[in-house]
């Protein structure tokens, strides 16, 4: 893999130039009390003081509300206005942690399974992902247990690793990454050969996700196990909404008078209405079943059907959870039991 070096000043120039060239630059920004991915208009808005952002980077390719098409009713006639693919901007997504970057792999598996979701794929195609290796971690991080690592390049087009002097090691992962580097080649200098590993956060691998994969199917029928696992779970959608790999969605119409549009918006398997039939029947009527769906989906269905794990070990869901449903702990209890 080709390595280069980007000084902190060049990094600033790069971002400033990207903004100047009408790229949509999305970066971690400290807004109010938290740090999240936002569209920026200047380099100074960027912060690097985070372990992970509150929400995942998936919003760039899979925004929480996506207008699918417009329609208009006039004099009893209906016309449709297709999605304007040209409106999708060229984007650069910066400061993406390796776990988040890897999440796009899972998302793409879903959106390209069978019918290809052109809206998603176009958005992702037009986005260059500049990852940033982790130099710190917390109790929630468990990427190393989920086949990731603080310096993993998977999913990023370019991965930056910040050095102690404030400059960055640049690893060019994909062609898209290479193109971006080529476009701004004057800003990148030759790699100084710094030891990347020593710059990375240490995340202990407390379990192996393979063990979870191996065990979880046999647990399906153990209703008592899931009930007890989910006792604390209050059934909100926070975990799914912040998750970099959760792709479940709802389709809704919004209208005012005769005009309106159809929207795809995030949904969560934790919510009881998710699977409720109009008849009142609910295949997953209690929280245990819904929690099981969440874990099975990530650690059984996706590996089985899409050949990818539905969890990247970012720990966001556990951080966001109002009742501290720590997914790593639950994984371990699956292995233990």
């Amino acid at each position, binding site marked *: 893999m080709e390595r280069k070096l980007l000084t902190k000043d060049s990094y600033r120039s790069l971002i400033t130039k990207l903004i100047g060239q009408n790229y949509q630059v999305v970066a971690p920004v400290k807004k109010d009390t938290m740090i999240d991915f936002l569209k920026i208009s200047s380099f100074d808005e960027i912060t690097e003081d985070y372990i992970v952002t509150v929400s995942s980077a998936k919003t760039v390719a899979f925004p929480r509300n996506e207008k*699918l*098409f417009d*329609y208009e*009713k006039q004099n*009893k*006639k*209906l016309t*449709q206005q*297709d*999605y304007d693919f040209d409106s999708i901007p060229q984007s650069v997504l910066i400061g993406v942690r390796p776990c988040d970057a890897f999440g796009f792999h899972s998302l793409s598996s*879903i*959106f390209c*399974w*069978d*019918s*290809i*979701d*052109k*809206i998603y*794929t176009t958005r992702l195609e037009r986005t260059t992902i500049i990852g940033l290796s982790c130099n710190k971690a917390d109790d929630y991080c468990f990427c190393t247990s989920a086949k990731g690592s603080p310096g993993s390049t998977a999913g990023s087009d370019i991965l930056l690793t910040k050095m102690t002097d404030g400059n960055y090691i640049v690893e060019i992962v994909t062609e898209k990454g290479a193109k971006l580097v080529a476009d701004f080649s004057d800003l990148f200098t030759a790699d100084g050969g710094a030891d990347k590993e020593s710059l990375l956060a240490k995340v202990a691998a407390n379990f192996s996700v393979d063990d979870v994969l191996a065990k979880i199917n046999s647990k*399906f*029928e153990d209703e008592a196990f899931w009930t007890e696992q989910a006792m604390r779970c209050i059934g909100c959608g926070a975990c799914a909404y912040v998750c970099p790999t959760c*792709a*479940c*969605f*709802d*389709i*809704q*119409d919004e*209208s005012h008078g*005769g005009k*309106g549009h*159809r929207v*795809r918006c995030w*949904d969560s*398997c934790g919510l009881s209405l*998710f*699977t*409720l*039939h*109009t*008849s009142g*029947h609910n*295949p*997953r009527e209690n929280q245990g*079943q819904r929690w099981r*769906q969440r874990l*099975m*989906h990530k650690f*059984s*269905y996706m590996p*089985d*059907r899409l050949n990818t794990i539905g969890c990247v070990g970012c720990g966001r869901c556990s951080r966001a959870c109002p009742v501290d449903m720590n997914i790593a702990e639950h994984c371990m209890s699956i292995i233990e039991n």
Partner: protein
Amino acid sequence: METQNIYLPYLMQIDKVSEDAPFVKTFRLKFINPEDEANFSFQTGQFGEYSVAGVGESTFCIASSPTRKGYIECTFRKAGRVTTALSDLEEGNTIGFRGPYGNVFPIDEWKGKNLLFIAGGIALPPMRSVIWNCLDLRENFKDITILYGAKSVADLVYKHELREWDERPDVKLVTTVDPGGETHDWTGEVGFVPTILDKMAPKAENTIAIVCGPPIMIKYTFPILEKCGFADEMVYTTLENRMKCGFGKCGRCNVGKTYVCKDGPVFSLKQLKQMPDEY
């Protein structure tokens, strides 16, 4: 494939509306854009997403047979928001349709076999497609028996088609209504579908049973079929889980790792038995 927005429905015009039972309507839909019609094909058992602009989408099967060209039909009961809006529409109105989605009844494999259709209530529509498909290819099959029951006489859907089937010499039709649901001039059976099925004691040999109905009916029908000697792989049904997308992305119709929208909605009893109890 990647050239289109998979969420954008075909526009279809309601060509004909018939009221089949209280709150139950059937729409015959025609493509507004002839190109769409030309590119469109489906097979029996498949479903689609029907939508009313400003209200939303709803999932139901295509109730007409692929052998009847130029239109599709759908039958629905007014229950939720979308079906309520749909039932307010009239001939000439435009609705959206996405599909077809899902797998199909393997009617090619059924060639030369007897067919036993068992349906209850509003679950006849998914069956109707396959029934007509098979009737239109009548020579491929041996005996065709249809057992259909509803809560009351009024609740029987497709009444004129029932009459047509009844009159056909190559179809055996048994209709039944739940006790209390009969009228004074009712000539059919009275009793729940499984009870009548038990009474009919169908022969399992070289016979495919296709069962569609409310969960409670299905629950009591399978054991009777088993009793009659039907092997699990000879029995078919369709599942109707809640769906949004229809193509395996929205994440709610799965039964264990089986996606009803992709692997189904048609399942053999054998497949069903391997699936967890999550439908």
